[in-house]
């Protein structure tokens, strides 16, 4: 029962956020400070999602060159900066990770 409640609430939240301005509100009517803060949501949230995926291994920060995910992630960051195609990091990052994992045994 709890699972279904969570599914219903999460679905409602994601839809209401998507629909917020497109369906219901006029962005011009929102306070200036709020609109300014919104602009930094993508870099902040996306970085907060990416960082643990590269640097956390089993709950511990691992910045060493033995961390294959960090190395493959840095290559993917460079690739993304050079070719601004959303797929470039996946097309390059996955093979690099597999290669590193194979090389490091």
């Amino acid at each position, binding site marked *: 029962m709890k699972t279904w409640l969570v*599914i219903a609430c*999460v679905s409602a939240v994601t839809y209401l956020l998507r629909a917020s301005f497109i369906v219901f509100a006029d962005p011009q009517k929102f306070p200036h400070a709020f609109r300014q803060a919104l602009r930094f*949501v993508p870099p902040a949230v996306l970085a907060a999602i990416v960082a643990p995926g590269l640097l956390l291994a089993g709950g511990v920060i691992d910045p060493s060159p033995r961390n294959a995910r960090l190395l493959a992630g840095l290559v993917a960051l460079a690739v993304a900066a050079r070719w601004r195609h*959303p797929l470039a990091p996946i097309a390059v990052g996955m093979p690099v990770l597999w290669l590193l994992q194979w090389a490091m045994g």
Partner: protein
Amino acid sequence: MSPRSEFLAGVRDIAPVLLGTVPFGLVAGVAAVSAGLSALEGLALSLFAFSGIAQLITCQLLAADSPVIVTVGAAFVVSLRLLMYSAALSPHLAHLNRRWRALLAFLMTDQSFAMTMHIATQSDRPHFHWHFLGAGVTLYCAWQASVALGIAVGAQVPPAWSLDFAVTLTFIGLLVPAVRTRADLAAGIVATAVALLAAGLPYRLALVVAAIAGIGAGLFVEKKGAHR
């Protein structure tokens, strides 16, 4: 371009993005099974929430038996970027009727947002909302099929494939174009540092704290720049 050719162009333009959608969907499907959701529950979450990162966080927190309010709150924070996308797109969709807007809002994702913003600003595309629809429906179907496959194969995906890394790479592909100014960079760097330092917090609260700290840093740097 006619509505029909816009729709087909949308299908065609989103096709390369599916290379990233399929592994991400597989990961989301596997995560639902690993979290103890039934196949029906996993599919329902995917069909109605239609958001990879919100689905992943929900599954992780359900697996940890977190309170409902915490789980929904975490899904809210990771989905806040949809609010920002909604604000950016709304002026381009304002001429459509409410039914169209309600439908396109449901289909809006990181990928279709970026694509539609690019097309909506071109002056000679009066039917561009059909392009949005074609891309959105295609992505929706591909996403649901990959999540269903992930649920079906469940824990049989070998860990050595490191498929979950495709999720991190997907977000790297979104993060880099989102960093355009020094203030954006400050937001990203501070969010990174806080996400790592606060990693020990329960209920994935680190993500929430890091996002708020990053937004604050962005605002601070921008304000400093303006006063110079």
